[in-house]
Every structure is written in structure tokens, then in C-alpha cells.
């Protein structure tokens, strides 16, 4: 066989494999989504939002307390994590762009971005659950906040850097001190981008299970008291999936579909937004 034909065959073969691997990846996405819809959609009814979790053996029940708990925990996580993240990101992009401390902060931040979330759960257990003596919604919120921070720091810095330096110089030339430049010009120009980063962080923590396992724990009953263990969707899905009852499994699927829809919607929204931005 001559070398030209051999090269062509190698080329066609390898490129075909590359197409197959892409189909392989897409196949799993559609498989996951199909399973979620086929198993979860039929249980997505009003009871799901109106009734609390069923106990063992109970036939009817929903996920009301878990949904409310998840919203509360996510809210607390973002409320604590986002301001810290935005401030730190502002420092990296504006005041300390070339400061010596910024290099390690960026480095550590990127590492924390992918740090195992279960370890963060253990950490918060040590600093909050042990001293307070019980599992609580607050500790769950703090654990989620630690996951929020790196995401927000990263997007805030990136978004602020997209603001052209000429804008900063124009404001400075008008006599504005640097903090006014940052607040009134840079922050204003990048606000929508920063909000997108925060939404991305919400999407990230909405389905986080591991850090909540031993911080917020779970709660079969409805509560708004953040000092108590708090029901939440991910841990409920985990417990119900591992449980022996069929209606628990059904609820777990419905909850999974709910989380996935929320997370994918947030992701697609932020993507569309970021694309128009660039």
C-alpha cells in the first residue's frame, strides 16, 4: 500500500473516531435528560410543591419543605459568598492588579474552584457544627458560601477587566478618586457581567449535596429556623434514592428533574448573556 493512501486512511479513520467520541459525549447528555424526564415528569404535580416529605410508609407526600429549605440555603450561601467574592474580585482587577498578594490569591482561588466539596463540608462541620452543638441551616449556608466565593471572584475579575482602561482614565482625568472610578464607572459597566457570575454560582450550589450532608443535614419537617437542621433537595434525593420505598424513589426523580431544570436554565441563560457581552 502506498504511503499516500495509508495517510488518507489514517486521517479518515481518526477523524471518524473523533466524530464518534463527540456523539458518545452527546449521547450521555441526552440519555441523562431522557431518563430524568421519563421518570420525573409524571411526578411533577402540585402535591410536590404543596406537601411536605412523607415519612417511612406514608403514601402521599411532596417536597415542599425541601424546596423551601434549598431556596433558603442557596439564598444564605449567595448572600454571604457573593459580596466577599465581588470585593475580592474588585481588588484583583482594580486596586491590586499588580500587587504581590494578588498572584497567590488568584492561584489559590482557582484551586478552590475545583476543591472537593465534601472536604468543605467537613471543614464547616468542624468550625460551626461542633462549637454550636447541632446541625443547622446556617452552617449549610456557610458551606455553600465557601463554594460561591471562588466562582464569583473569578467572574468579577474577568468582567471588570473587560472594561476598557480608557474609561478608567477618562474618569480619573475628570478628577475622580480611584474608588469613585471603581464604583461609578467600572462596577457600573460590569454589573450585568458580575450578576451573571453570581447566577452561575447559584447554579453551581443548587445541586451541591456533599457539603450539606453534615452541615444542614436534612429535616423531614417544614422549618424556616436556620438554627435547626434544614430540609433540602439534594440530601433528600440522596436519602430517598437509598431508601426502600417506591414513592420515595419517585419523589427523588421528581426532585432531580426539578434541580436539573433549574440548573440548566440558569446555565443556558448565563451563556446566552455572556455571548452577547463578548
Amino acid at each position, binding site marked *: 500500500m502506498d504511503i499516500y493512501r495509508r495517510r488518507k486512511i489514517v486521517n479518515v479513520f481518526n477523524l471518524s473516531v473523533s466524530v464518534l467520541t463527540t456523539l458518545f459525549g452527546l449521547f450521555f447528555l441526552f440519555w441523562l435528560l431522557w431518563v430524568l424526564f421519563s421518570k420525573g415528569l409524571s411526578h411533577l404535580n402540585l402535591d410536590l410543591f404543596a406537601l411536605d416529605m412523607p415519612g417511612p410508609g406514608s403514601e402521599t407526600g411532596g417536597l415542599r419543605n425541601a424546596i423551601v429549605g434549598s431556596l433558603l440555603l442557596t439564598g444564605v450561601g449567595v448572600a454571604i459568598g457573593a459580596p466577599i467574592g465581588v470585593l475580592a474580585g474588585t481588588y484583583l482587577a482594580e486596586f491590586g492588579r499588580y500587587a504581590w498578594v494578588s498572584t497567590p490569591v488568584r492561584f489559590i482561588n482557582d484551586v478552590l474552584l475545583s*476543591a472537593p466539596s465534601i472536604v468543605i463540608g467537613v471543614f464547616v462541620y468542624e468550625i460551626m457544627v461542633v462549637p454550636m452543638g447541632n446541625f443547622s441551616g446556617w452552617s449549610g449556608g456557610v458551606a455553600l458560601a465557601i463554594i460561591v466565593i471562588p466562582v464569583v471572584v473569578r467572574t468579577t475579575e474577568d468582567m471588570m477587566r473587560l472594561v476598557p482602561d480608557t474609561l478608567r482614565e477618562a474618569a480619573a482625568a475628570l478628577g475622580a478618586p480611584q474608588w469613585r472610578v471603581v464604583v461609578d464607572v467600572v462596577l457600573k459597566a460590569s454589573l450585568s457581567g458580575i450578576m451573571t457570575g453570581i447566577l452561575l454560582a447559584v447554579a453551581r450550589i443548587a445541586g451541591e449535596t456533599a457539603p450539606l450532608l453534615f452541615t444542614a443535614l436534612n429535616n423531614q419537617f417544614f422549618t424556616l429556623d436556620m438554627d435547626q437542621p434544614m430540609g433540602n433537595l439534594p440530601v433528600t434525593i440522596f436519602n430517598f434514592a437509598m431508601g426502600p420505598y417506591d414513592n420515595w424513589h419517585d419523589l427523588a426523580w421528581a426532585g432531580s428533574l426539578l434541580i436539573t431544570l433549574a440548573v440548566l436554565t440558569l446555565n443556558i441563560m448565563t451563556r446566552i448573556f455572556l455571548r452577547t457581552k463578548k
Partner: protein
Amino acid sequence: MTEEESPVAVAATQGAPRTRAFGDLLFEGITRSAAVGVLLVLGAIVVMLYLGARPAFEKFGFWGFVTTAEWNPVTEMFGGLSPTVGTLVSSLIALVIGLPVSFGIAIFITEMAPPWLKQPVGTAIELLAAIPSIIYGMWGLFVFAPFFAEHIQPVLTDTLGELPGIGVLFQGPPLGISVFTAGIVLAIMIIPFIASVMRDVFETVPAELRESAFGIGCTTWEVVWHVILPLTKVGVMGGVMLGLGRALGETMAVTFVIGNAHELHWALFEPGNSIASTIANEFTEADGEVYTAALIALGLLLFIITFIILALAKLMLLRMSRQEGLRS
């Protein structure tokens, strides 16, 4: 213009600011403490985990803990070997499957797909990363594991399992709940991370290099293999490390499908456990100081391993972007 009004303008004309507005100092101070706070969080995690793990290290010694396989809450004998091996093996399986697939996807997106297809395919693959890990766990336990046990595992056992030497790896009960299943689920979870890094670094290769290679008659594959890959080696390695770091620390998906057995087997189709799954399963039930400490020690071990891997990933990607900066 008075100088205290505009440090930036002063800096522009005189080299350095002489006085700074109070607002500037305050604002810089606040933002800097937030930034340093990020460093402190990391430090606090390491210190707290070490303090929590100390009773276990005192009792068993660090190396004793790492190299002992026994895990018995009744006799309070704890060794981290089995979960550590489970973590490494499942992540390795994930890499072996995920790396070629990600490479193929990155080639398809950067070199083959028509422009209108690039974005949708790229987004769809990235959405795989957005799906929460608990969903992978549900799917893995109720759908994939039974499917695997019925259709794939017998085939693997009958073919690869017959081979001398490595055949023993592909033995085990037909449960579908195993270290191998965990590895496959992890592979699907890390593919989007590796593929998107590869895509990004492939796209940094200047068009002139591609075009000149095509110009002397290279096929698309030869351009990828002999031009693009050598130029982006470091970045590709960074992406692989990032994927590995993700796989090592993944908790929920693994907990659902790995079987949670504190045993060491050569056979990959046997149930096993990983560090993360052990902590997830046993932490709330752990009674006694040593039991909890042993679990925290596992957490510290996991944190150190992933930190090293992720730091390497970051360093490689930094080197990649620096190369990029020099070329342009």
C-alpha cells in the same frame, strides 16, 4: 486640578501618588481583606482538618494510617488504604476512558465542525458539567449500573477477563455496582472539563501554522498530531490534571455506584469505596473520637492530593498562556 482629588492623574504626571484620598485607602483596604480572606479560607481548611485528624494520626501514625487496609469501627482500627486506592483507581479508569474521548471531542469542535455547529456542540458538552453530581448518582444507580451489569460487564469478562495477567482485573459479581462503574460515571463527568480546556488551547494555535501545514499537504489528522498537539502539550496536560482533580474529589456520583465496601480487590468489578464516598456515608454515623478523626484524616488526605493535582494543572495552564503571550 488639586492633587488629592486624583491620584491616578497625579500618578500619570509625576510617577507616584503623593497623597491618596481617604475613600481610596478605605476601599482598597476592604477589598484587599476580602482577597486575603480567600487565602485565609484555604489556610483555615488545612489547619482545621489537621486538628480534627490529629487523634487518628497520633494513634496510627501518618504512614501507618495511609498503608493500613483494616477499617473496623468496633475495634477502632482505622486505615485509609482501601479508600485511597479506590479513589485513585476509579479516577484512573475515568482518565483512561475520558482522555481519548475528550481529545476526540476537542478535535471535532476545533478542526472539523462547520462554524454553525461549533457553538451548539461545545455548549451541549459543557452542559454535562453543569448537571449536579447527585443526578449522575441517581442515573448511575438506577439506570446505568443495571444496564452495565447486563450488557457490558459480561462482554468484558468474557473477552478481557480471559486474558492472562490482566484478566483478573475484569472479574467480579454481576452487580453493576463496582469501582469500574464509578470510573465510567466519573469519566462522563470529567469529559466536559478536559474537552473544553483542550478546545481552548487548540484554538490558541495561530491560523498561519495550521495553514502552512495544510499548504505542504498535511492531512487534518497530521496537522492535529504533528503541529497542534506538540504546541499545546502543556495546556493539554493542564486540562487532564484538572479533570483528574475533579474526579478525585467527586463525591455523590461515586457514593451511589461504587458499592461502599471496605475491601481491597484486584477485580475492578467488585464493590469498593473512595475517600469521598466513605466520608459521605459514615461521617454522621461515626461515634467516638478516633472514628471521626479517621474520617477527617481521610478528608485531609483527599484535600492534599487534589490540591497538588489542581496546583499542577494551574501551573501548566499558566505556562501555556505565558507561551501564548510570547508568541503573539
